[in-house]
Structure formats: structure tokens, C-alpha cells
């Protein structure tokens, strides 16, 4: 029983990390960034390329993964900003429908662009960058590759490290949004873009910053996915992106804690669902929950009912 919960929490932390990106972008410019799932995939491919291209990275073991995480976060973040400036900024005042369709177009561009460059079939993750390889863990930290029993269930050290990393990142983000000046600017824009400009906030710069953070987080999640599951494909972003959006909606779209909570909840719901009904129904659960939440409580667990101003 606890094993199912542990599995759910582990998968949930991936959903949460990506859902954060969805929620931030949706919160600030009310855009459903369909391409966000593919940014996650793009981050994984960047990570894989760094591991194969950078000389001598193999010898660093865990250090290699840390470096690659950083590089991938920066590069994916930059891609996110690029996408926002090229595709979404010109349509800032366009009707919602055309921005959504642009996002779908961008999603295709990322997916099949990566397919064109890295080839269609799934790519195994380089040996040096695998969290589950005992060789990569330094002598003192051998527990990283072994299983650790927790309350009857068990997770590998690597999984615990990844979940810890996810929690740390979420905490840092929450502090950033809550306490810093830029964070306040983001919240202001989310509430009223025009008023924010009057207050001297450079809206475009802040929106780019949001895209940078959201995409960087997705990039980190991409590298973590590759490092743990050790195989990536150009289509993995589509389904995971959809699930991350479901998580964001369940938690309350636009609300950061909601994205985190929603991610973990969806992870657990799926884990129990597959345990009881069989693996093949896994995706169906995610969407049934999405539709149920949208009908019963569209604002999600933490979202508050916002009066739609005329």
C-alpha cells in the first residue's frame, strides 16, 4: 500500500515541476502554453546532448548530472523566452483562439523539429548521466543506487534525491514569487496588466522572466526524467504536458501551491488507479479526473472563485 503512495509521490513530483510552468504562464497572460510539455522534452534532449558532447563529463559521476541540470535549465529557459518573444508576444492582443492555435503549432514545431535533428527513435540516456548507476555515485554516497525502505514500501536513493530536488525548487520558486520585487511584479501583472504598466512594471520583461523560470523548471524535470528513466523520445512531452496541465487545473490554475499540490494528487490518483484497474487505463484516469474537476470545481483545490469582471 505504502509502495503505491511512494510511486504516486515520485511521479507526482514530475507532474508538479511541469505544472508550475503551466500555472505561472497561465496566471500571468492567461495562455495555455501547449508547447510547455514539449519544452520539458526539449530540456531532456539538451541534457542528453551535453552528456555526450562535453568532453570528460563522464568522470564526474553525480557532478556531471548536476552540471547538465544547470546547463539544460539555462538553455531551456532561453528557449522558452525565445518562443514567447517570437510566437506569443506579437499576438498579445490577438483573440484567445489564435494564441491557442499558435501554441499548438509551436508544440508541433518542437516535437517534429527535435525528431528532424535527433531522429525519430527513442534515445537511450548516456551511461555517465544515469542516477541509477552505482558507478556514478561517489564512494561515500553509495546509498544513492540502493533501495531504501520507508514504512514498508521502498524507493531508490536516486528517487529520493529527485523528489528532494523538486521540493527545494518549488520552495525557492515560492519564495521568489512571494518575497522578491520581480515576484510582486508578476503577481501584479496576473491581476491587472494595464494597472501594472501604470505602476512602471516592464510587462514584457516580466513575462519573459516568467517564461524563463517556467521553461527552466520544465528543463530540469526533463533532465531528471532522462537521468532516472534513462530513455527519452521526441513524443514524451505531449502526454506528460497534458497530465501536467491536468495537475495544474486540479490544484487550481494560476496558483503555484495549487500546481504543486495538484501534481502530487494526480500522481497518487494515477498510482492507485493503475493498481486497481490495470496499467492500460492509466491515461484515461488523468483525463477523467480533469473533466470531473473542471465540472465540479473549475477553480481547483486551492483556486479561489474570481468574479469575472465585465
Amino acid at each position, binding site marked *: 500500500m505504502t*509502495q*503505491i503512495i511512494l*510511486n504516486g509521490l*515520485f*511521479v507526482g513530483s514530475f507532474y508538479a515541476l511541469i505544472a508550475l510552468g503551466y500555472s505561472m504562464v497561465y496566471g500571468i497572460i492567461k495562455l495555455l502554453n501547449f508547447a510547455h510539455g514539449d519544452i520539458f522534452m526539449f530540456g531532456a534532449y539538451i541534457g542528453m546532448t551535453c552528456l555526450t558532447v562535453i568532453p570528460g563529463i563522464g568522470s564526474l559521476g553525480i557532478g556531471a548530472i548536476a552540471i547538465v541540470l544547470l546547463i539544460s535549465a539555462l538553455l531551456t529557459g532561453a528557449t522558452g523566452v525565445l518562443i514567447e518573444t517570437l510566437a506569443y508576444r506579437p499576438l498579445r492582443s490577438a483573440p484567445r483562439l489564435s494564441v491557442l492555435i499558435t501554441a499548438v503549432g509551436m508544440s508541433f514545431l518542437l516535437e517534429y523539429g527535435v525528431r528532424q535533428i535527433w531522429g525519430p527513435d*527513442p534515445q*537511450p540516456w548516456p*551511461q555517465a548521466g*544515469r542516477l*541509477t*548507476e*552505482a558507478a556514478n555515485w561517489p564512494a561515500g554516497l553509495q546509498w544513492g543506487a540502493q*533501495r531504501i525502505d520507508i514504512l514498508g514500501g*521502498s524507493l*531508490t536513493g536516486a528517487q529520493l534525491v529527485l523528489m528532494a530536488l523538486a521540493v527545494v525548487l518549488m520552495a525557492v520558486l515560492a519564495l521568489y514569487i512571494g518575497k522578491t520585487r520581480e515576484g510582486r511584479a508578476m503577481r501584479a501583472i496576473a491581476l491587472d496588466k494595464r494597472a501594472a504598466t501604470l505602476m512602471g512594471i516592464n510587462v514584457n520583461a516580466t513575462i519573459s522572466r516568467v517564461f524563463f523560470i517556467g521553461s527552466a523548471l520544465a528543463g530540469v524535470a526533463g533532465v531528471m*526524467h532522462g537521468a532516472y*528513466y*534513462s*530513455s527519452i*523520445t521526441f*513524443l*514524451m512531452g505531449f*502526454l506528460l504536458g497534458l497530465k501536467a496541465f491536468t495537475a495544474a487545473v486540479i490544484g487550481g490554475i494560476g496558483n503555484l501551491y495549487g500546481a504543486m499540490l495538484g501534481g502530487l494528487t494526480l500522481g497518487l490518483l494515477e*498510482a492507485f488507479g*493503475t*493498481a486497481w484497474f*490495470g*496499467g*492500460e487505463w*492509466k*491515461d484515461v484516469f488523468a483525463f477523467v479526473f480533469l473533466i470531473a474537476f473542471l465540472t465540479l470545481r473549475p477553480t481547483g483545490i486551492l483556486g479561489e472563485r474570481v468574479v469575472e469582471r465585465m
Partner: protein
Amino acid sequence: MVASVGGYCSGSTLPTLPIFDSAKIPQLISVANSDNLIKDNTGNVWLLDGTGEQQASTAMKWVEKNSFKNLAVIDDKTDYSANLATRFTAKAKEAGLTVTTDSLTPKESDFSAQVTKVKSAGADFVYFTGYVQEAGLLVKQLVEGGYTGSILLGDGSVDAKVAEIAGLANCKNVYATYTKTPDMLDDGGAFAEKYKAISGGTEPGPYTIHSYDTVKTWADAATRAGSVDQAAVNEALKSTNLAGLTGQIQFTDDGSRAGEGGFVIVSNQDDGTFKLYDALS
């Protein structure tokens, strides 16, 4: 077009059956082996590869040989995979063994639910009948999830990539049911050399000899029938008795390959590529 040779996965081959039949073109299927392909065979379909039924019986022999008692069967809901899994499960139940079945979604990467189910069932043998990508991930997550039993893969997952994804260390007791591959030929690599000569240096793939045999079978039937007409060729194919690279080629009346289907047990323990481990003959 006088003949169709090919068909890798059953799912996509199935819809082509009526089309080739209506176009009056005999269809020799070199690899796809789901029994649905020959279920209501109008005499126009010939399987060169061992069918799901034959592969399942070879797997059963392997289970009995190692006297595994608690089996788990996982498929990926595709046509080939589901067919092999259901036939194997039926045989295992006949033999009175306990069998837990589950399936997974292709293109997914997290199979912790399936691993948990296998471990909680206390299985000492897992038969995964899906394809390469999911096989690699499942083997990795099974071993890292603490499963210590034996793992058998269907012939759809026989590829070096499985070891690449799962990591060689995790493939200690990974085996697969498989028909002969070029490197298993006892001709000292002559076929491989000739193949590389004409193909500009590329190694023969896992199913090259199957395609080779299939074309050879058609050619033999056409020469014996003296014409390329569908009815004549199909008639001649019934009485095929040809020595091929994959063994003696004969057909049963429902169009499937006669004999044991030539399945053997292969393993990728030493260097990640699947090599002959036990011919079970």
C-alpha cells in the same frame, strides 16, 4: 506487383490482408506472427515466422525447464503483444501454474505500478510480450525495484537497445524467445559477409534471414507453379518443402509455418546483444 513480402508488426499488417487478397496478390509475411493473421485465411496468407502459439509453447517449455511456479505476464495491448500474452497465459493456466496478468501503455515511461504488482504477487518469472522501448524500461525498473526473478521477453523486444536502456548490469537474468538470427547460422558468417558486400557494409538486421527465406520460398513456389498467377502460386506454396536459413520451410494447412516454429532461447547477458543461450531441442 506479383507478391507481397514483409509485414513486421501484426497490427499494421492485418488491415492489408483484404486489400492484397482483392488485388489477387499472394502475401508472404516474413515476421509478423499474430494468429489473427491466419484466423480466417482465404489461402492467400503464408507466415514464415513462428506464430504466437508456437512462441508461447516454447516459452512454456522454458518455464517447465526452470520449474518457475509463480508467473507474471505483461503485454502492451498491441495486437502482437496481446495475442502472445493471452496464448501463453492459457498454456500456463492449463499447466496449473499461478499467473498474474497486467498491461502497460506504450510510449509511457513509468511502470512502477506494474513492478509493484509483480512484487506483491511474489512472482519468480515475468514474461513481457511488448516491444523494445518498453522492454528496456520495464527490465530496468523491475531489477531496480527489487525483483530478483527471471525475465523472458517476446521476439518483438530482441534488440541490443534493451540492454542499452536497462543497463547491462540489470540484464543478468534476461532471456527471450526468438527464431534464428544471422549470427546464429552455422555457416561461419558467410551469409553476413555476402550481405555486407551488397548492402554497402551494413550488418544484417535481426530479421534479414527471414526476409531472405520468404523471397526464396515465393521464388520456389512460382518456379514450381510455372506462373506468377495468384491461384497457381498459392497452390504451389501448400506443398513447399524448402531448406531455408531459418530451418526447413513447410506450411500447415492454415498457412502457418510447420514444425516448432524454430523458437530458441536467447540472452543478452554478456555484451547486450542477444545470443543463442538454449536451443531447447
